């Protein structure tokens, strides 16, 4: 536990030692504002909630989260520090969890910095803050899901561009699985249970359900188990190919 915390702190500081953190946070906030007010027509909707704001999160994360996760392991491989890290007296699980947790905490910080949106909507009307809180939690969980996928892919390569593109594609699959377009397409020729299974793997299905303010254990379980599975795979991949 102590070692995990030491590694976690080093990682998190690492984000702020480089322009990565600042660039990411600024772009994230600008894009959030732009899609909410311009594409989402926040004012014209005249509704006291943040639904339009959260609606765009799966798509913002699609591009931004792989940009964070691509460096997680690929960079360690590139600089050779993976050899240093793997020969320190810490376990693989501690290392994998610490690095993931730091990346997740970092996206959490970026998410918290969108609080002016929350202030705005509270100034303009009287929204249901419970729903907004649930949506923030859902968004954070979803970010964790994206990150875990990206971390796992990053462990496979020392090339960050490859890690970025492959993670983006995989995350896109996880979004599209809940799209009517995809579901209608497969529902024509597959039995209903398959359609339901595909839908249940979608980030959108679970995120939308949390966004309604309905706290369903299954949604939490989905993101939780997805992260656990990806991190486990991450550790296995590292164990199998530490050196190359």
């Amino acid at each position: 536990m102590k070692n995990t915390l030491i590694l976690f702190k080093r990682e998190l500081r690492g984000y702020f030692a480089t322009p990565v953190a600042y660039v990411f946070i600024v772009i994230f906030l600008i894009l959030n504002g732009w899609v909410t007010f311009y594409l989402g027509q926040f004012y014209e909707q005249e509704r006291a909630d943040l639904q339009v704001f959260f609606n765009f999160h799966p798509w913002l994360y699609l591009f931004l989260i792989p940009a964070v996760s691509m460096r997680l392991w690929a960079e360690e491989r590139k600089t050779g520090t993976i050899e240093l890290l793997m020969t320190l007296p810490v376990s693989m699980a501690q290392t994998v969890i610490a690095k993931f947790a730091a990346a997740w905490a970092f996206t959490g910080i970026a998410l918290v910095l969108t609080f002016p949106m929350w202030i705005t909507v509270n100034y303009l009307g009287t929204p249901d803050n419970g729903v907004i809180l649930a949506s923030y939690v859902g968004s954070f969980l979803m970010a964790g899901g994206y990150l875990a996928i990206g971390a796992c892919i990053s462990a496979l390569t020392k090339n960050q561009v490859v890690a970025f593109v492959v993670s983006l594609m995989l995350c896109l699959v996880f979004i599209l699985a809940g799209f009517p377009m995809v579901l209608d397409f497969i529902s024509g020729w597959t039995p209903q249970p398959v359609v339901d299974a595909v839908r249940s793997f979608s980030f959108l299905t679970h995120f939308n359900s949390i966004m309604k303010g309905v706290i369903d254990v299954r949604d939490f379980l989905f993101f939780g188990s997805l992260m656990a599975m990806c991190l486990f795979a991450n550790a296995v991949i590292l164990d199998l190919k530490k050196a190359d």
Partner: protein
Amino acid sequence: MIDIKNLSKSFGPFRAVDNISFSVQRGEVLGFLGPNGAGKSTTMKMITGFLTPTSGSVAVCGHDVATAPIAAKQKLGYLPEGAPAYPDMTPAAFLDFIADVRGLSGDAKRTRLAEVIGLVHLEGVLHQRIETLSKGFKRRVGLAQAIIHDPEVLVLDEPTDGLDPNQKHEVRTLIRRMSKDKAIVLSTHILEEVEAVCTRAIIIARGRILFDASPADLQKEGPLDEVFRRITTGERVAAS
């Protein structure tokens, strides 16, 4: 302190290390010599637990690296090839991080950090990012990182590579000074380094140990570079 038994490592069909066995005692400085690609680094990576052997075993201070990796790694200090370190960190922050992971804290940590920084002369660059440092300074950061917890076993992959003659001399002096109560394994391309610091030399080529004796014995065979060439290429060098 280090016990290696029938160690082999294959990468696909290529056998990088082929059934080698040796042990290193406290007080020994073992020089690993050999041409590029001989298997020096691969062997060191297996001693430190970074690479998993295809077969055979490594024990560090009685802890098997495969079954008790954490215990073995606690006894080890390791300078990997190229002395990797986090480029965005300063040596001060980096060494502080390593000291934390190595379980040092409070006054003990502060004293030890100051001591190690003095030993490798990093005072002038402590607050400069590692990526801006020269090769020599990076190597010294790597060395400091390896000895910070005063480990019983030190594995140094080309510790003097990229250093100027004065720095080389300092590092060799440092290694000799530490050698009394440690087991040290170092690899090098520089033959005179073996004479200067090692109490024992192993010449390795194509993954096999071809020579294992003291540097003095090695010298009896003739001029070092000729002996090295003869042993590693298997050809007789005409005395000219």
